[in-house]
């Protein structure tokens, strides 16, 4: 299943296949890279901030958890990996 990170179901593990750097400004892109959101990296969508809005989104990358906005997540293309590995 290929989708953007903001549409990835919670609890589902996925691998980043492409990031649309043009959709992010320079500083945002750099911070994403510093936090380890890079091509080929595996992550899991964990939580959303509220019932009534999609912001923000918490994802697990390796042993770290980070929070990003849905707008950033929309710029990240992912492909779901084996669902058994997600939990």
């Amino acid at each position, binding site marked *: 299943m290929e989708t953007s990170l903001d549409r990835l179901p919670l609890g589902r593990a996925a691998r980043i296949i492409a990031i649309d750097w043009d959709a992010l*400004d320079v*500083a*945002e892109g*750099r*911070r*994403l*890279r*510093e*936090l*380890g959101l*890079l*091509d080929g*990296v595996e992550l899991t969508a*964990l*939580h*959303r*901030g*509220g*019932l*009534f*809005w*999609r*912001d*923000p989104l*918490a994802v697990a990358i*390796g*042993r*770290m*958890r*980070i*929070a*990003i*906005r849905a*707008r*950033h997540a929309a710029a990240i293309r992912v492909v779901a990996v084996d669902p058994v590995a997600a939990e």
Partner: protein
Amino acid sequence: MTTAAPLVALVGNPNAGKSSLFNALTGARQKIANYPGVTVERKSGRASFADGRPIELVDLPGSYSLTPASLDEVVTRDVVLGQQMGDRRPDALIIVVDAGNLDQHLCFALELIGQGLPVVIALNMIDMALRDGLELDAAALAAELGVPVVPTVAVRKRGLADLVAALDEALRSAARGSGVAGDADQFTLHQRARTLARAATLRETPVRRWTHAIDRVVLHPVLGFTILLTLLFVMFQAVYAWATPFADALEGGIAALQALVVGALPDGFLRGLIVEGLLGGVGSVVVFLPQIVILFLFILLLEASGYMTRAAFLMDGLMAKVGLSGRGFIPLLSSFACAIPGIMATRAIPDAQDRLTTILVAPLMTCSARLPVYALIIGAFIPAQTVGGTPIGLQGLILFGLYLFGIIGALAVALVLRRTVTRGNTAGMMMELPRYQMPRAGDVLLGLWQRAWAFLRRAGTIILATTVVLWLLLTYPKAPEGSGISQVEYSVAGRIASGLEVVVAPIGFNHDIALALIPAMAAREVAVAALATANAVEAGDDDAVAAALGDTLAGKWSLATALAFLAWFVFAPQCISTIAVTRRETNGWKWPLFMVGYLFALAYAAAGITYWTAVALGLG
């Protein structure tokens, strides 16, 4: 080498446990100042080698790389590169990494090692990594990196002696390790970091079980919000309930001192100055120390446990609606203690317009200096009863309401500002959600002590000076004997207040309040001291010693006036220090003047509406 102590910088990612390590190495021997020209805090302190030679340590702001995204991170880069004004380049670096997050933290470490300074790596929080099922080989990592790697547990002071010994060794040695050159991209850094982390890992289980389980509850869209609101509610109830015995004891102590002075000195200028001006004025503010300490205790605990970022996460969606970000939640929450550290904490917000808006609304968060005013008025006018058979106190509920009123005001103002004067991109929020941990008592106590001391220093300087000046203005010129004119009305302050009263009378403010508003510009809590001083002068010092200020006011003011006074303080920009720090943070007078203007307008309107409504309801 000179005989001067080597300058060593502690540097690393946010959440690597840097501050705890700094506290553990320096103890309470810390100096907090600002870097010249910017308002980034410079924390320095002394540690020592095993043989007693001193080390000068500086704690640099947490960063992700040497490419800065905020003012804090600019300082970190400049210090490491030796470009920081007023600081020499460090002789060595202690790079602090979270042992449980090497994939991430080694990236910055590699970049730092590449700078060619002597380096020691503190493999911090090694106990937590182990608890999470991660077993690491420090020696293997050291061999790969070519620099010493020392496992530490800062909060338990473990590994500190080894760290200092390794630092001593590194300063003597010419070895510089194999980092990555300054122009490396993040992709290369992350790949190298991952390879290194894998090589150093002996055994690993995949998840952080504790953090995972807690987050499931705490970040739940419904449950999480309920917990957050409950926490805030309990916090404000506690500020009232727990502080009372301590505040009563302080009050009793001050009254005893006053009685002592009254007994020891003849009636006259000196006795009046000490009893009414000094003890009456400063004493009425110092009484609030217990409440301020309790509030800070909660804030420090939430920060140290890792919950504060979860609160930011939960609030981000809501804050995005008004054009702010969850990143602004921490500065705004700190503003509940005091807007000054809150405004200074906005430096961590990368987006300029987002940051400016957060600064402009920060004074709407109910700072601890307003607490004395609220506590006095609520104590005097709101009965100490519970609400409809529940164990919820009415006084605490009103206090909670005032805080809520400030928050709603801030959100509304932010919404308007973001569509008008601070229009711009919607701000982004990206942050790490650190692992939960037990706050360390020593770190919390040190933080509490630093805050309490700052409050007492203010009480001893600004507040002392203003209450004494106010007492002089209230006491002179002396009303003619037997004329029947009240001393307060006849004094210089009384005449200034009479002029001001014309402006504030429509919103229900009496002469007392007009008088209190003047010195409250210096610091809000002085309003209480001013009311105390004015009523003491009027009553004559012997009566004032006996009568509590609250009872006096309850007899003089209407409920409508009291409520209007509370509403005024929700908005009024009455603190010169806040205005000054805003000027410094925004580099000019434009924004502080704007802030003062809009806040006064709001305060006047809010007090007016409250007063007129209350009068219409028959509470006048």
